[in-house]
């Protein structure tokens, strides 16, 4: 471990406590140096230990310092390069590193999908184990030909968590005829409580009781290709694109009819029986529509006809 790397860690840690404790970067670095160079503790563990020491001194919780102010993201929310973020993810797959510069490479996943990760050899981080769940603070996003990945670097704090994550398949592509629009589609009201967003039933949230809901548009639809069914959720944006009905327009329609169900009826009329292809991450049994297209190019009978004549 080079001195400059330790220095960088020391600066990070110092920044986290500069408001609450009277420590210098030099002091932090000395603590780290003792652990790493005398006791041969891995850098990430040393950093963890030093941070914990200062947390105790400051009477703070680990949550109070966050990941150094990074935004915590879910995998499918990674959508631009060179951002510093925190992730909680499971190691879905480890691949063979093709270069000595890479210590580990593979796939991380959370409920919303999977993303490639790279861990550099020179970062000297602890080894990630397959199927284990980690809290990863301070990873950098990257993009190559439209696909995103994250890089673990020497400032990344890795904490193994004793839990499991149901990893979603990302970017499922499903197609078929739209055979059903399920109840709870159309103009809905969501609970305004922070982090709730549940859809209200008769003005009530199952968690927060009677609340003053906020209008939203969404569709729960079923695509069926004659072999399997897929449930698809369109959010407000994709619902507007699919139906041409805006949230404002939907509210107008509901106001005129004194009934929100007219919006669902209109959506049924516009979409039922048509063929669509939908792409997006899976979440439980649903595919969340990131993008969709109506399949209305002329159907080609030729290939099927050849097959029909050959059997």
């Amino acid at each position, binding site marked *: 471990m080079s001195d400059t790397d330790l220095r960088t860690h020391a600066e990070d840690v110092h920044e986290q406590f500069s408001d609450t404790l009277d420590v210098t970067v030099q002091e932090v670095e000395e603590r780290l140096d003792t652990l790493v160079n005398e006791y041969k503790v891995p850098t990430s563990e040393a950093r963890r230990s030093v941070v914990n020491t200062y947390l105790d001194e400051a009477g703070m919780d680990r949550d109070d310092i966050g990941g150094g102010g990074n935004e915590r993201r879910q995998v499918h929310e990674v959508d631009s390069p060179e951002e510093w973020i925190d992730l909680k993810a499971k190691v879905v797959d480890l691949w063979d590193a093709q270069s000595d510069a890479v210590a580990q490479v593979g796939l991380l996943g959370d409920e919303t999908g999977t993303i490639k990760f790279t861990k550099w050899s020179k970062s000297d981080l602890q080894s990630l184990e397959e199927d284990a769940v980690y809290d990863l603070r301070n990873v950098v996003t990257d993009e190559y030909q439209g696909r995103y990945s994250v890089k673990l670097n020497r400032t990344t704090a890795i904490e193994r968590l004793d839990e499991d994550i149901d990893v979603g398949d990302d970017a499922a592509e499903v197609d078929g*005829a739209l*055979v059903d629009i399920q109840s709870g589609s159309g103009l809905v009201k969501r609970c305004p409580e922070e982090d709730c967003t549940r859809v209200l039933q008769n003005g009530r949230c199952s968690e927060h009781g009677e609340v003053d809901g906020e209008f939203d548009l969404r569709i729960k639809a079923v695509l069926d290709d004659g072999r399997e069914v897929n449930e698809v959720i369109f959010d407000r944006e994709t619902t507007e694109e699919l139906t041409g009905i805006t949230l404002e327009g939907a509210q107008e329609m509901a106001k005129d009819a004194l009934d929100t169900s007219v919006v669902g009826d209109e959506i049924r009329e516009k979409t*039922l029986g048509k063929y669509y292809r939908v792409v997006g991450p899976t979440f439980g049994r649903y595919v969340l529509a990131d993008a969709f297209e109506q399949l209305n190019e002329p159907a080609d009978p030729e290939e099927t006809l050849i097959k029909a004549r050959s059997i």
Partner: protein
Amino acid sequence: MASTPTREVAKRVFAREFNDAVHTFKESDDDRAPVYVLFPTGQRANRVFLVGTLTETEDVGEESEYWQGRIVDPNGDTFFTYAGQYQPDAASMLRELEPPAYVAVVGKPRTYETEEGEMNVSVRPESISTVDEATRDRWLVETAERTLDRIVDFQAGTANEYVQMAREEYDLPVENYRKAAVAALESLEDEQARASADR
């Protein structure tokens, strides 16, 4: 995904085969267990999706409204669909639509015995919607594909239980359904050739 109750797939079938599917059965003794019709090509169906030309609607109800719709497939064979007070959306579609129109129907196969003792198969619609010609054409090719897949399985004589059941219950050559698929595909090819010649 296994923990969620599975929704029945909407099977694709031309009217010729659908109207021959007179054998029904349940998979369990439970009263609420789904009723399946058995396609002669050896597949069970509790839901179908069809697209065709609505050619005629008629209220055949005696005391209350009961709408019959005739929906003709590309071979000129007819699907019969019936909607009454328990299918209000579909019934009002049949009441209001002006034939001819391309319609898509999602529904449950139902069989009934006529006074002459003949078994008829019809569709009890969950939804009826108007669609365009491109949707009809896509359904046609898709339905031909699914029909051919069933015929291949049937002829392979695999251990598929519904193929076995079809061999026991029916004495109908599956060749008829291959011919129906070929005829439907050829009609689409002719239509497309005419359309491009007109251009």
